[in-house]
């Protein structure tokens, strides 16, 4: 069949250089810190910590990616995370302990705690969604620049944090919520998760093959496809056993991976995702293609809001308290992660995967320098310079290509 030769060519030549460069940079940074810290940096324990450290920023970077791709920005995510975090703490420490025993007098304290956590999670995600929709509506339909709306939103939410906490730290937090942020999967649970992931990889590989055959596209040999699937499976197993040799796979890391996969899927395989990239690439052409550009922008902010909710909940569970300083400057780290991962502030270009790797690089720098006992002032300076350097290299490499 002549007509599908375009597709074959693509499959043969498609190599994502960007992703490889990022990985390469990550490996270099890890090896560098590994040697500078006499191997401590590369220990399983530190590696486990590193991954947990990155989760909270990762949620924000994942949500920020579509926002930046449409050519907008969200400066309020740090404050929103902080705000939702103190709301979660307030609900758990002040509202529910008084409310729930009255509603369910027959239940044990442990069960009440779980109900408290479930309801808290739902409310927090809902608040995130509402704030996201509110800001998104003003940006998309009100025509106020995103920079201004979310800068204003940052102030409002910071005020909200102080209002809720009255300047104090709110404790205690239910154990069940802490588990979400600090817990580990048991050894067996970890292996089961790994096996499920591996099964999914193989099934989708095979499904893909049938689909390709159905449309008459030449497929690689079965052996080759299975080999690739096997390589990924081995990586997952290695990771699982590595984590299990310390305390197990961390629950927040699992949540992060799940969300990253879901959002990646949305970006690549749904109309909404396509529209996001199109809006960022050429807003006018997209509008003239009959796409409701405003609604697309609104939805990216709604998604961002929900992810701020997730981030806020995990933050509360992690610190086991609601604090006034929670979330401060997270927006900058999230934007830094996105940009480091190749998202263009001009819009139209970027991936969730890149944003996660970018965040991992930023967190690795932070973690590595802490392990080395480098002074905090140096840490800031190095992080800032590396961010600028990364984007500079990216910009120049793109220029050379065109």
């Amino acid at each position, binding site marked *: 069949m002549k*007509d*599908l030769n*375009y*597709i074959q*060519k*693509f499959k043969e030549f*498609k190599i994502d250089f960007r992703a490889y460069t990022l990985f390469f940079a990550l490996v270099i940074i890890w090896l560098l810190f590994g040697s500078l810290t006499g191997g401590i940096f590369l220990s399983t324990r530190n590696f486990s910590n590193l991954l947990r450290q990155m989760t909270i920023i990762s949620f924000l970077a994942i949500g920020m990616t579509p926002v930046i791709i449409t050519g907008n920005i969200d400066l309020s995510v740090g404050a929103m995370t902080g705000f939702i975090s103190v709301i979660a703490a307030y609900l758990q420490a002040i509202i529910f302990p008084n409310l729930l025993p009255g509603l369910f007098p027959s239940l044990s304290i442990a069960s009440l705690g779980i109900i408290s956590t479930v309801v808290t999670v739902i409310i927090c995600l809902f608040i995130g969604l509402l704030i996201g929709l509110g800001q998104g509506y003003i940006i998309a339909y009100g025509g106020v620049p995103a920079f201004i709306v979310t800068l204003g939103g940052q102030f409002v939410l910071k005020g909200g944090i102080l209002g809720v906490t009255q300047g104090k730290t709110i404790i205690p937090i239910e154990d069940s919520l802490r588990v979400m942020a600090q817990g580990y999967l048991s050894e067996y649970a970890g292996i089961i998760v790994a096996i499920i992931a591996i099964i999914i990889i193989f099934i989708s590989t095979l499904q893909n093959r049938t*689909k*390709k055959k*159905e*449309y008459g*596209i030449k497929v690689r040999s079965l052996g080759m496809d299975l080999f690739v699937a096997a390589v990924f499976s081995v990586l997952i197993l290695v990771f699982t056993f590595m984590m299990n040799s310390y305390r197990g796979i961390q629950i927040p890391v699992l949540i992060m991976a799940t969300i990253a996969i879901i959002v990646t899927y949305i970006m690549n*395989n*749904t*109309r909404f995702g*396509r529209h996001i*990239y*199109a809006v960022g*690439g*050429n807003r*006018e*052409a*997209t*509008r*003239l*293609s*009959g*796409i*409701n550009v405003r609604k697309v922008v609104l939805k990216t902010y709604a998604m961002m809001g929900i992810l701020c909710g997730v981030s806020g909940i995990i933050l509360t569970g992690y610190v086991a308290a609601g604090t006034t300083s929670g979330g401060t400057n997270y927006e900058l780290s999230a934007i830094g992660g996105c940009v480091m991962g190749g998202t263009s502030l001009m819009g*139209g*270009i970027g991936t969730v995967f890149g944003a996660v790797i970018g965040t991992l690089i930023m967190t690795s720098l932070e973690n590595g320098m802490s392990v080395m006992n480098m002074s905090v002032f140096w840490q800031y300076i190095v992080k800032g310079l590396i961010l600028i350097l990364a984007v500079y290299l990216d910009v120049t490499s793109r220029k050379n290509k065109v």
Partner: protein
Amino acid sequence: MKDDFILKINNVTKDFPGVRALSDVSFNVKEGTIHGICGENGAGKSTLVKILAGVYPFNTYQGSIYFNKKELKLTSSSIEEAIKEGIATVYQELVLVPYLTAGENIFLGREPRNQRGIINWNKLFSDTKEILTKYKLNVPLFSKLSTLSVGQQQMVEIAKALSHEVKLLILDEPTSALTEAETSSLMEILKNLKKSGVTCIYISHRLDEFFQITDSITVLRDGQVVDTVKTVDTTEEKIIAMMVGREMKKRFPDKKSKPGEKILEVRNLSVFLKNKSVIKNVSFDLKKGEILGIAGLMGSGRTELVTALFGEYGNQVTGDILLDGKHIKINSAEDAIQYGISLVPEDRKEKGLVLIQEIYKNISLPNLRQFSSRFNIDKYKELQECQKYADYLAVKTPSLFTITESLSGGNQQKVVIAKWLMSNPKILILDDPTRGIDVGTKYEIYNLINKLAEKGVGIIMISSELEEVLGISDRIMIMHEGQCAGTIERKEATQEKIMALATNIKKNNRYD
């Protein structure tokens, strides 16, 4: 020297990739005269202006230009150098800072200063006043440009050009954005300039203006000089004949089918933008399988008319639109597409394509619903469909995954058309679809339009080229200043008739 030519253009040829914009152009301009240059869109007028203004520097063209008795060799692509030589250009689009006053704009970047570098405002304003009075330009001294009318802004632009020691002033379609009153005052200004010894090159689409002010006229066609004549020795009809009068070769495929029943009716459509009436009471019909050509000069409202049909102006549109006999209201592009109306826009780069994306994503953008559920796009189906249309249009590309930006103009246009064909329109509107496209691809596009018409699609096609409108349309509607100046059946249409309606030749007396 015995000749008194200030500018001599000798055998200038300028090539762009794939196109020869100017071919062996030669003519002379007498000192102290107003010299008109006319020609259809794409005849090479703008290219010539850009060479004289130094946008295309010496060595990027062949031939020689003598200005003021010595050869003009502009090396950099900055207009500063041309100005230093004594050539200033006023472009069609204004290039002034809207939030500064006339004087600040005129002396932008070279404000009079004292020894310490502080701007001497008194001198700036008195110099400005001197220039404005000298050339009888009626512009308020202390108002910001944004508060002035377009005509007044243009005067500032002219004043800016004249504030340099210019010997040659080039005006590139200065009246395209002016009202009639503003135009006639510009005519007065130009006459005054001539009295004070400034030579002008005047470019316009409005032929009557040439006969009011110019001393001689050079007619360009397809990058070549047809003739240079004294204005007193010629007539508008003769000029039009020179502009369009080339032999019709077989450049258009034959259309076999006949129009069917009526599909679209537009009644008294008017558009108001910023309290200005852009389209005035336009009515027309479109039948199934009919190709309705819309002719008209740039700024005649032709683009606004079709974008209004595509829902771009929302509630600023009055009048009735009937599709298949039913009244419809089109408030957005989304609505239009739902009704089966598609628009291939005028500016494919700005409005037609997401240039940084792959070809297939551009083709499928408005059509994703055809192969997606709420939660999934069937990518293989998508690729297969896109492939079908890319093949149908013979898009020349290594792969559907090629970034659209890297395609040639003609192939980019094919991608835009592919995208709208996939949406299966009842009515396809094409706004100047062959602009900047080579002859071969043009023929392919004409063929395609014919094929669509044969299938029963109603087609509205705007074109800047008279030949094209004549070659392809069943019927031609001519727009002039937002109104329908007339509709001509193909059999009865001639280039002269269309040009006469489009330039509104009968209203010759409007400056009297």
